[in-house]
């Protein structure tokens, strides 16, 4: 069953259809929200829930097109609102997620402290930090592309901007991440470079 068929079944009262939809969208949507709010797990879980609550409440407004794109449009509004409310500019000294490590700990340090070396060496941790350090607009384009696998035309619609601007943001994000992760290329490309 595709998303449209599951939605139709849910509208007729089939809760298993809703469970299937939520499960299907969980990885990309949660991944996007999680990375947009710098790996704060509780905040990500709350926002994930709020996206679904709004989507289900306003379901009659969803007419056609990709349901996942519609969810990401709602998520975009929520994460941007959240960022405005907190007026949070990611600080180099703000702890990131459960590790408690900061950006300055993990990105800038060529010589990490001994107790942080293991985490810093781990590619996943370095990617997390590098992504969290991107400006919000660039981070969002990058995550809509990587997590949701949306085309740039759709990303531009979600951000209410032009295709060229969305593409430019992605280019800046990738260029910046390549610079930050320059020592990890071998791991990134499976040791081929």
């Amino acid at each position, binding site marked *: 069953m595709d998303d449209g068929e599951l939605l139709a079944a849910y509208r007729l009262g089939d809760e298993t259809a809703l469970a299937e939809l939520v499960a299907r969208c969980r990885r990309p949507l949660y991944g996007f929200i999680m990375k947009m709010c710098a790996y704060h797990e509780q905040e990500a879980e709350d926002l994930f829930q709020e996206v679904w609550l709004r989507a*289900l409440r306003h379901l009659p407004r969803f007419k056609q097109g990709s349901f996942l794109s519609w969810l990401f449009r709602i998520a975009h509004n929520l994460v941007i609102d959240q960022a405005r409310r907190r007026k949070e500019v990611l600080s180099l000294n703000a702890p990131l997620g459960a590790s408690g490590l900061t950006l300055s700990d993990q990105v800038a340090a060529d010589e990490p402290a001994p107790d942080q070396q293991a985490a810093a060496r781990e590619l996943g941790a370095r990617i997390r930090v590098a992504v969290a350090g991107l400006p919000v607009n660039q981070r969002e384009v990058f995550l809509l592309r990587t997590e949701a696998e949306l085309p740039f035309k759709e990303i531009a619609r979600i951000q209410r901007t032009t295709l060229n601007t969305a593409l430019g943001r992605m280019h800046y994000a990738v260029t910046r991440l390549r610079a930050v992760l320059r020592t990890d*290329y071998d791991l990134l490309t499976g040791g081929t470079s």
Partner: protein
Amino acid sequence: MRTCATWERDILLAQTGELSAARAAALTRHVATCPACRAFGVESAALCRRVQAVGAPPPSLPAATWARLRAVQPEPSAAYWSGRLFGPRLTWAAAAALLLALGLWWIRPQPGVPVRSADGAAQAVLVLTLLSADWEAQAAELEATLEADWQPGVARGWEALDELARELIGGEQS
């Protein structure tokens, strides 16, 4: 002359399948001769794949979240409210009344402008034809009706006035 930065944007578009065939062919030729763009393509694709794998969500939805989602009542649609408040017949009647009111407002007498029946009739024709779905056919029909009825109507009016005048004059004379 295109720079590598513009080729790199084309690489990003090619990865989502949004690059036209002509530009994709040009990109292929460029990448074959440019190691920097080739590296950008390999590394950006690897980066996207690797980022996806980082920070996967917990496999199951928290029970409290699931309970809240199951309790959601979708808001009624606009069609629901229109049907509930008015019903289909009343909705059409209300729409027709609104259109009629708008039409009357449009052809209302203007202050300082003498009212001429012909103006009113012409405006009424316009209102009715604009409101009509098949307005071209309706307009032709109305014009024909006016042509047929208007002139004899005016002539009959003059005749009646003449007759009244004659009666009045005759009455005074007698």
